[in-house]
């Protein structure tokens, strides 16, 4: 259906799939951010009823920010990236059909943020989720993480920076299911089809109601 240099997207029936393809760790580039926004626009126009977001290969879902990029960052570029990052998060949150993150491997920093803004997360046994910002002197994902899991767990993850293996992520509710790596995309597609078969307006209403209940003022966020 579409692609840019580091992102691919396609539709099968009424299910759209977006693949972050920026090897080896699928670090989140601005090219990816633009790709995700373009894909969601095309899915909306094509009448998608559910979306799967995943990373290429079996090593990483999304490795977060590219540390190599940092030397070139000026304050203006950082502002720009943050603005576009927030735009992607909002787009995932307010895209009418649910978005399922298929977590195929490392999910760190900005990659965790991306996964947390999806509606549902399922993982393979290779999934590893870490709020690693603190390891490099930064802080990210604390707002969304503290809303998705109880604050005590959020503090553990955010202050230690340790990565959760798939089983622990399942236990704490960050993942809804864990399957073998080779079964992940079929499992994600099955979840997406289950949602796509529901009445679309009921699904959209439920998602809107949850968004509104949990974050009334989010539309005004940066």
């Amino acid at each position, binding site marked *: 259906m579409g692609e840019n240099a580091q992102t691919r997207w396609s539709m099968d029936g009424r299910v759209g799939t977006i693949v972050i393809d920026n090897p080896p760790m699928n670090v989140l580039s601005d090219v990816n951010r633009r790709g995700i926004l373009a894909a969601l626009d095309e899915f909306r126009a094509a009448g998608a009823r559910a979306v799967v977001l995943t990373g290429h290969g079996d090593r990483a879902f999304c490795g977060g920010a590219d540390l190599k990029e940092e030397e070139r960052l000026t304050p203006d570029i950082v502002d720009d990236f943050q603005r576009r990052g927030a735009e992607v998060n909002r787009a995932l949150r307010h895209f009418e059909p649910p978005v399922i993150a298929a977590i195929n491997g490392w999910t760190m920093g900005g990659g965790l943020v991306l996964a947390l803004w999806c509606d549902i997360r399922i993982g393979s046994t290779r999934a590893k989720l870490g709020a690693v910002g603190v390891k*490099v002197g930064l802080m990210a994902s604390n707002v969304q993480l503290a809303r998705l899991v109880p604050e005590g767990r959020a503090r553990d993850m955010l202050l230690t920076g340790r990565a959760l293996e798939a089983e622990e992520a399942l236990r704490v509710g960050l993942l809804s299911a864990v399957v073998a790596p080779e079964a992940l995309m079929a499992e994600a597609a099955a979840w997406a089809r289950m949602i796509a078969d529901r009445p679309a307006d009921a699904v959209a209403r439920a998602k809107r109601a949850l968004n509104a209940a949990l974050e009334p003022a989010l539309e005004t966020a940066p």
Partner: protein
Amino acid sequence: MLEITDISGATVAALSGACAGDDLERALACDVRLAADSASFSGESLSDGAAIRLARLLGEARAKDIVLTGRRFEAREALRLGVVTRVVEAARLADEARATVALIASRPPLAVRAVKEAVERSRDLTPGEALALEHERFRRLLDTADHREAVDAFFAKRRPAFEGR
């Protein structure tokens, strides 16, 4: 029994034996709680402060279960409820607590403090305000010497040395 360890403002509670009342309340005030597999917990006669803290830490449904029934529960259930985030064999508890303290202490202090402060302040902010705060802190941390040290150490494949600036 409760032991609290404080590192640059972050606190870790190591829980063994019976944990109830004031002990439980103090443990709930910590950032991270670990328990021995032999520890037990009771929600009996908790103060209002502990009840509020439980609701924030576990969510409303689980907090009400504990506070309104005042029932006793074991370490495994405490883990499932989220009262603690890790359970280990009693003999390993002290080591696990020390390792957790060492892990947090090895992180850049400014980032640790920023996370703690943001989590605490975010509770009383709208989501939009909380995100704005997170972005503003991110920008400030990006300019710290410790962040540059972390990036340099990453590419040089060496252990970073953080100085809290």
